[in-house]
């Protein structure tokens, strides 16, 4: 008796849908941050892209915030299923002082919250922000730690046999957000 996995993919956000949600994030930040000393820190890999896109939108509106990048591979915990066995480490780059800033972390999806927890530790080893917030494109639920985003593009409830796949042109050569379902048939 053999088991085959069937994978179905459903497009949840089209490229223009993503653009819309990026704008939602930008709006949220504009509304709540006022004139604060804001800094963006994108989590490798797609969190960086997301941070840059939101920063670009805000730049068009006249608000220019610095964007740093953060590799959290070295901060993952043992329960983190997302980490590969042999992570290719990236050099984190935060070329500005984050002390006293309102630092906004960016990641494309929040799931268990462990990646964000690792990012918090990593970020605080760089300095002492006054306040840290979190912006995500998609929240797929299933938190295992008490971590919640402050700015959300879209909430997409998922089952445990599903995951969210975000594709950005800059990183993947294509664009879209997909809900992937793995069902086992015997």
């Amino acid at each position: 008796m053999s088991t085959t996995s069937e994978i179905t993919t459903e497009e949840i956000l089209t490229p223009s849908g993503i653009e819309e949600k990026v704008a939602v994030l930008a709006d949220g930040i504009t509304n709540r941050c006022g004139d604060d000393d804001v800094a963006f820190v994108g989590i490798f890999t797609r969190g960086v892209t997301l941070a840059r896109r939101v920063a670009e939108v805000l730049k068009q509106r006249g608000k220019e915030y610095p964007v740093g990048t953060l590799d959290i591979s070295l901060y993952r915990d043992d329960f983190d299923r997302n980490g590969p066995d042999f992570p290719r480490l990236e050099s984190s780059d935060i070329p500005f002082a984050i002390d006293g800033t309102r630092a906004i972390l960016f990641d494309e999806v929040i799931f268990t919250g462990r990646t964000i927890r690792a990012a918090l530790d990593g970020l605080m080893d760089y300095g002492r922000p006054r306040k840290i917030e979190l912006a995500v494109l998609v929240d797929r639920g299933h938190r295992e730690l008490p971590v919640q985003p402050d700015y959300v593009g879209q909430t997409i409830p998922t089952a445990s046999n599903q995951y969210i796949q975000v594709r950005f042109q800059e990183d993947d050569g294509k664009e879209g957000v997909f809900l992937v379902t793995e069902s086992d048939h015997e």
Partner: protein
Amino acid sequence: MSDLQPRKDLLDIESLSLEEIEYVLNNAVPFKQLFQRSVKKVPTLRGKTVLNLFYEPSTRTSSSFEVAASRLSADVTNFTVGSSSVVKGESLLDTIETLQAMRSDYIVIRHKGAGVPGIVAKHTNASVLNAGDGYHAHPTQALLDAMTFREVCPDYAGKKVVIVGDILHSRVARSTSTLFQKLGIEVGVLGPGSLIPEGRHDFMQRFASWDDVFDWGPDAVYLLRVQLERQEGQFFPGIAEYHKMYGLNSGRLSQMRERGTWLMHPGPVNRGVEVTDEAMGYEKSLISTQVENGIAVRMAVLHWLKPETQQD
């Protein structure tokens, strides 16, 4: 994407695939980058134990490993075994049993017996890192040398490096030349005939003099430490003669300066023997970079290896 298989130990360079070498060297870069932060630590190995087991004294290498392990938040224990208190043979097996009982995750070992790290690795679940065994191998030194050379020569394939000095007794020469050759770097040797082993790899050409070396035009000169205690009178007549023939004196340094040749040395340096004071101030000396990169590379190696202690 990756064909990397989990590896428990780092014993030598020969057994590493090019992919593994690239992986470690590439990962060492972000680790080095951490040194610029005020918080130089990352929590990656928190809760893990690293045992530094040095049967031969070495402050450079052992402290480099200690710093690397500390910066990964591991718990480090240093164990320097005085050679007089270690009974030959007897202690190796007994020590291995003790090590197993201590349940260390990583064991960094330096021993004068070639092959000892391999024996220890076979008998423990811990990841064993060879910090130098006899004349055989010093893999982390080779890796930090490669990292350093690649920083200044990013298009390293086809470049040339000459190793100068006591090749016969040098595990650094063996490991570094092997790694450089794996990376496509040509390696030559210069030194007294009594210190160049006849069994060396045939594709390391031997130069008769510094003039021949400069005609060949290396991109880097890699000086080895001359072990005075051992060599003098036995392998060559004396320091003065060694320095005259093979030392990096003013004239040779000028030639290097003209050609923009890099200078490397694994340390510690014998001033007046293989180098002059002047050479130590050479603007293209990579010696302190090597030290800095040593910590980064050792962090990358500790991060990469997979001990089997977790399965207990």
